[in-house]
């Protein structure tokens, strides 16, 4: 599973899980499957799963990170979101 070269997650915009994506909870976090591009992605922490599920409730990514992620973890979770976006799992609202 390789990433596309361009990263375009605008943290000042509202995002959500793509409607084409199913999430299945697992002990380690969740599996995410994009029914359109057939990508299977492993979300390797329950906190990331919670963040991804909550994105749709926030006005932008920054707000979601402020509310749900400790400051010292912010860069790591932002990178995870960018990676999900590159795989087509997120969509701008």
């Amino acid at each position, binding site marked *: *599973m*390789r990433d596309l070269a361009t990263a375009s997650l605008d943290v000042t915009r509202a995002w959500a899980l793509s409607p084409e994506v*199913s999430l*299945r*909870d*697992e*002990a*380690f976090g969740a*599996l995410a*499957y994009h*029914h*359109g591009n*057939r990508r*299977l*992605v*492993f979300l*390797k922490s329950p906190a990331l799963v919670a963040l991804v599920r909550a994105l749709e409730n926030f006005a932008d990514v920054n707000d979601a990170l402020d509310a749900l992620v400790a400051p010292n973890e912010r860069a790591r979770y932002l990178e995870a979101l960018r990676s999900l976006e590159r795989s087509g799992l997120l969509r701008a609202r």
Partner: protein
Amino acid sequence: MPANSSLRDRFERGLAAPICLTWELTYACNLACTHCLSSSGRRDPRELSTAEAKALIDEIAAMQIFYVNVGGGEPMVRRDFFELIEYAVSSRVGVKFSTNGTRLDAAAARRLAAMDYLDVQVSLDGVDATTNDAIRGDGSYAAARRAMDHLAAANFGPFKISVVMTRHNVAQLDAFEALAASYGAQLRLTRLRPSGRGVDTWDELHPTRQQNRDLYHWLVARPDVLTGDSFFHLSALGAPLDGLNLCGAGRVVCLIDPIGDVYACPFVIHEQFLAGNVRDAGFGAVWRDSELFTSLRAEGSAGACASCGSYDACRGGCMAAKFFTGLELSDPDPECVFGHGETALANRVAVTLPSPKEDHSRRVALTLRSRVVG
């Protein structure tokens, strides 16, 4: 999807539901391939009915199994084939189905092309009729190519050409790649297993050690070629191949056969790896609670491979390949890249190969009846 080792450990202890569920819809098949994993041919009268199959799809959807790998036998010979796959897709269960292509005419191709969440894999085991038909039967090459032509004409999009790697087609890898490119198709390569009728043909068909090495390097250079995580035993040669690189049997993978029996993986249709039947308390109960799957998820030992520095790369290889060549599950994979499997094979004391519990092979040879299609 490279998995880090802690995630792999997690997978080896099992998941809430399989990642990769194979469902063989029927044992009926109009071909008689010499390496058939499921010894298919004759329909089993106990086959799941349409209603039972739909109930199973409902359960698969409820368990959030994202897609099923549908095979057989030849799934398209089931009269309710389209009814079932359309039911699955409308339940948001994706379908990846394997076909020999004999029933894939122009009308079927158009119907498939109209569906979302559907992948088609046409099986082809040689880039020419001579190589292919020696394994899959006379006329099977022409039939598969006709099916591909129909898919292309129907603008299906990138279907898959699915190849079982044998001693006779490793040299054709570049030609397979060119064939796939000519259709805008994706190439998918899988490992020959000594399962089903393969018990009798594996010795003469499996790639040589040098061919496996060539195949590994060819795959490393082509991460876009699909492998179904099939060649993890070759990862001991260097950088791991793309995939989970573990034996997923009963952990992230399993098989439901046409009569509802649940086996640990598609390559072990044998009573020793039978976990239960979906007709009893449903598939979920078998997946979650069966004694067999529970034991497969318990921490395993590296067995004879414990002293090998590459155990972490190949995890001792494929359970089915060991079992059906008469090795112990603690032995190295028969195709161990360092030759330890060949030594183990040579050291077998009594070579009584396990025979499959179910053999649906036709009792008489048949010739392929090809239909003229528009």
